């Protein structure tokens, strides 16, 4: 027989728990839900847009009655549970209805706080919490003109904005001098007030309400100093209190909320609680995302899986008033042990403040330009040491040459038809629509539904901003590393460590040892595991072709029409008339439609049929050319300028050095693509300062630069060190490359890797630790013994199976 689960509270946290539970254990329980409101489950966050007339109730429903029916859930709408009989495991509703339970889930949410003053129960005094409140306000806005909103916090300002949009004259009354003082400091609060005043909102503050005036209906508000304001609608929006009355009455331990442990269990082991009603590690939460995190953990335990833990969340806040961009997170006031960096431009309506302690971000407030909110929030969450980039921290992550979203960095200023994601052509309106209509709450959900920010990621900050402006806040789980992919809970670093320590030699062995959830992984983990294994055991590991992306399996780049492109290696960008003739002959012979010079100083043959690849390679091999690995997570090119051999400014033989470096490093597999360059003088014609490893020759030697990137996010290199001989360049280059190969995560380029581990760390390993450097160098040289085999020659000579290149069968008729 199925166990019985009863949910009290038909809101977002409770129902999300049921959804998570149905995903992992659909048959486990008979489920009964009690909700005090006469509706299905709706998105409470979006009540503000309903009030402002931007959305209807239907548009914010998350689960209609049909959903409950479809999942076999008994729904008691509009029935308030008044008693929990824990001894007999039974809940009793006000109308006498009862339900037995094996497990009980409390998600009773929170109640608006009512200011304890005379007249607070007069008709025309409302709170802002549910659909009924919104209906009352909308009705009042049609009949009446003057509204007073008590409370200048997030909720109060959203209510005031909505009522103003409905045509009312609105005054916000606030007890302190600063609006939203829990989220904003004085300066940002003043900017917010100014722009709301420009839109016609009135403020009366600081002011303490002592009475609501009126007889049959509210007529005004009186303050402590004796002054009065006329009002025919008063909205109380001074805060919410966790609703734990029922739990407390039933003898469950409560403090400021229902006290739960890391599994969301209350002091009664049969009873769990989630959402705004709970107190976890002393914290209560009001934003939606942490509640969903709790829901996931709770479902895991209700399903008796028993391994998930909720460890608290960090939250950030965003005001949902159209056209106002505001962000805050963490401790943004600071104290004498902390420092602050401030940027203020009042006439442009811009303000940014970052609070630091020991070079780690403790909090941030931003007004006007909030695009970097998500970045600061991440740095704060991860506890990143910002000293390396502290001098430009204030200007944000994206101040340098970000491509792909038209220089837009203010979501609020964008119209619905403006493009956010330049890779996938996704407009702001499409994201807003998906978030509201499909009920999305996380970046990953938005990525999979809309594809926005799922390709190059340059618009991630913008997408997060749009999400925050719709959902009212960002959030993040307590700092933790992400698992390698959905097939496992282990992180990249865990997996690599295990491969080395357990001497695992196949993908299958890794998956078995680490208890992969899927039988043979997915397109994310298999290529990563293949790389980690071959990097760890270059001599022993047998490469698994089926775990490589097609480009690395076919040793050519797949194009949109299913043909391939072929790029032969040109050492240091040098070629000869014979090579060029051979390329021309190949292009003619195989009717290759496009021949193009690449950015890496070589020639690309585009539109080659897959069956022709081995023959094309055979012809190129005969002229002495090998694979350029233009398709791989591997060493790509070494770009050079002509240097001292020809150039009147050249200080060293940059071309010759480039050729030597390319001969040394070609064929090596990497976590991601890897590009090098050698410039013969500081004029830097080879653009060495946007490469993964760049050499700039100077009269006295060679500057070595690392971690540059010329793609989506332009990043200039950091200077690693200066050396004086070519032999040293070789040694440092190999050691750096090997460190990157061994320690960066799969698909992490050198730029983000260096930002993650810190330039100092890389310098320490490659420059300061001489013994370590030589060991890295030797491991690279050893690994190259197995890697430097031309994959084209192997296939052109049929030394490798041909099944990749020929059809299984040609069927003439059918």
């Amino acid at each position, binding site marked *: 027989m199925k166990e019985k689960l009863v949910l009290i509270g038909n809101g977002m946290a409770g129902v999300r728990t049921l959804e998570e539970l149905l995903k992992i254990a659909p048959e486990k329980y008979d489920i009964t839900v009690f909700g005090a409101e006469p509706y299905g489950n709706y998105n409470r966050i979006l009540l503000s847009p309903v009030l402002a007339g931007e959305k209807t109730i239907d548009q914010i429903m998350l689960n209609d009655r049909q959903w409950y029916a479809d999942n076999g859930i008994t729904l008691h709408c509009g029935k308030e549970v008044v008693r929990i009989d824990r001894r007999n495991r039974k809940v009793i509703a006000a109308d006498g209805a009862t339900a037995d339970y094996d497990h009980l889930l409390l998600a009773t949410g929170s109640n608006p706080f009512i200011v304890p003053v005379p007249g607070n129960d007069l008709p025309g005094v409302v709170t802002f919490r549910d659909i009924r409140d919104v209906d009352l306000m909308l009705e009042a806005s049609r009949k009446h003109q003057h509204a007073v909103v008590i409370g200048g916090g997030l909720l109060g300002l959203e209510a005031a904005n909505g009522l103003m949009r409905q045509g009312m004259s609105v005054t916000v009354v606030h007890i302190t001098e600063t609006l939203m003082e829990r989220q904003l400091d004085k300066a940002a609060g003043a900017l917010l007030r100014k722009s709301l005043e420009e839109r016609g909102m009135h403020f009366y503050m600081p002011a303490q309400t002592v009475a609501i005036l009126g007889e049959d209906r509210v007529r005004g508000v009186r303050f402590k100093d004796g002054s009065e304001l006329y009002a025919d609608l008063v909205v109380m929006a001074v805060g919410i209190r966790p609703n734990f009355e029922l739990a407390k009455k039933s003898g469950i331990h409560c403090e400021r909320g229902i006290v739960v442990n890391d599994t969301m269990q209350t002091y009664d082991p049969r009873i769990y609680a989630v959402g705004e009603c709970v107190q976890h590690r002393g914290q209560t939460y009001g934003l939606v995302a942490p509640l969903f995190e709790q829901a996931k953990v709770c479902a895991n335990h209700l399903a008796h899986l028993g391994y998930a833990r909720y460890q608290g969340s960090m939250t950030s806040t965003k005001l949902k008033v159209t056209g106002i961009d505001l962000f805050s997170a963490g401790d943004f006031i600071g104290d004498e042990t902390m420092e602050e960096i401030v940027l203020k431009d009042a006439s442009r309506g811009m303000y940014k403040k970052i609070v630091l302690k020991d070079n780690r971000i403790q909090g941030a407030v931003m007004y006007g330009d909030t695009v970097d909110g998500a970045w600061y929030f991440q740095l704060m969450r991860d506890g990143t040491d910002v000293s390396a980039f502290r001098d430009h921290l204030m200007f944000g992550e994206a101040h340098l040459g970000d491509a792909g979203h038209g220089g837009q960095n203010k979501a609020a200023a964008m119209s619905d038809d403006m493009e956010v994601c330049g890779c996938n052509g996704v407009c702001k309106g499409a994201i807003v629509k998906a978030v509201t209509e499909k009920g999305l709450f996380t970046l990953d959900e938005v990525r999979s539904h809309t594809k926005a920010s799922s390709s190059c990621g340059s618009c991630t900050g913008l997408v997060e901003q749009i999400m925050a402006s719709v959902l009212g806040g960002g959030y993040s789980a307590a700092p933790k590393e992400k698992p390698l992919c959905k097939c496992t809970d282990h992180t990249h670093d865990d997996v690599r460590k295990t491969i080395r320590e357990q001497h695992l030699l196949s993908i299958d062995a890794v998956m078995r040892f680490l208890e992969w959830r899927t039988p043979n992984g997915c*397109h994310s983990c298999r*290529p990563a595991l293949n790389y980690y294994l071959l990097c760890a055991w270059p001599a022993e590991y047998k490469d698994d072709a089926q775990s490589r*992306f*097609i480009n690395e399996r076919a040793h050519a780049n797949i194009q949109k029409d*299913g043909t391939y492109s072929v790029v032969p290696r040109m050492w240091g960008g040098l070629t000869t008339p014979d090579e060029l003739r051979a390329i021309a002959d190949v292009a003619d012979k195989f009717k290759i439609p496009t021949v193009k010079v690449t950015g890496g100083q070589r020639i690309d043959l585009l539109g080659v049929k897959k069956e022709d690849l081995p023959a094309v390679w055979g012809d190129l091999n005969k002229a002495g050319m090998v694979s350029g690995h233009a398709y791989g997570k591997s060493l790509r090119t070494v770009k050079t300028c002509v240097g001292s051999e020809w150039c009147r400014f050249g200080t060293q033989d940059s071309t010759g050095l480039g050729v030597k470096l390319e001969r040394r490093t070609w064929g090596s597999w990497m976590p991601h693509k890897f590009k090098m360059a050698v410039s013969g003088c500081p004029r830097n014609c080879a653009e060495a300062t946007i490469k993964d490893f760049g050499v700039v020759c100077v009269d006295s030697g060679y500057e070595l630069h690392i971690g540059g990137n010329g793609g989506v996010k332009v990043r200039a290199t950091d200077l690693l060190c200066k050396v004086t001989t070519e032999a040293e360049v070789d040694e440092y280059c190999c050691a750096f490359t090997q460190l990157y190969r061994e320690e960066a995560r799969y698909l992490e380029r050198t730029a983000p890797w260096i930002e993650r581990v810190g330039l100092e760390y890389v310098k320490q390993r490659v420059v300061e630790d001489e013994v370590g450097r030589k060991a890295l160098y030797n491991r690279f040289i050893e690994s190259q013994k197995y890697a430097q085999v031309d994959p084209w020659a192997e296939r052109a000579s049929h030394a490798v199976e041909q099944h990749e290149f020929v059809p299984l069968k*040609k069927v003439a008729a059918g």
Partner: protein
Amino acid sequence: MTDWIEIGKIEDIPRLGARVVNTVQGDIAVFRTAEDEVFALHDACPHKGGPLSQGIVHGKRVTCPLHNWVIELTDGIAVAPDEGHTACYPIKVENGVIRLALQRQPCSSAA
């Protein structure tokens, strides 16, 4: 009557891999899973027509090499939230010999 066409042996296809059969109806991708099950799909992703035969096979699914859509091998339906489907063909293995019928199967469960 179904006309079964012999297209090769199961070991001609690598495990967790695919091969192509050229036909007058266009290319058909023939997949082999880790458990030696065999499936046949029209070799075009419902998204932008990418050649599914070139994708990474995992479980009973293949990931399109162009934009990472994931397609079910059993029925050709795209894994949610992506929407779309690609045609399937009847296929069977007897004594290690694979036979294919050139009859596009209407997609059963997709709208």
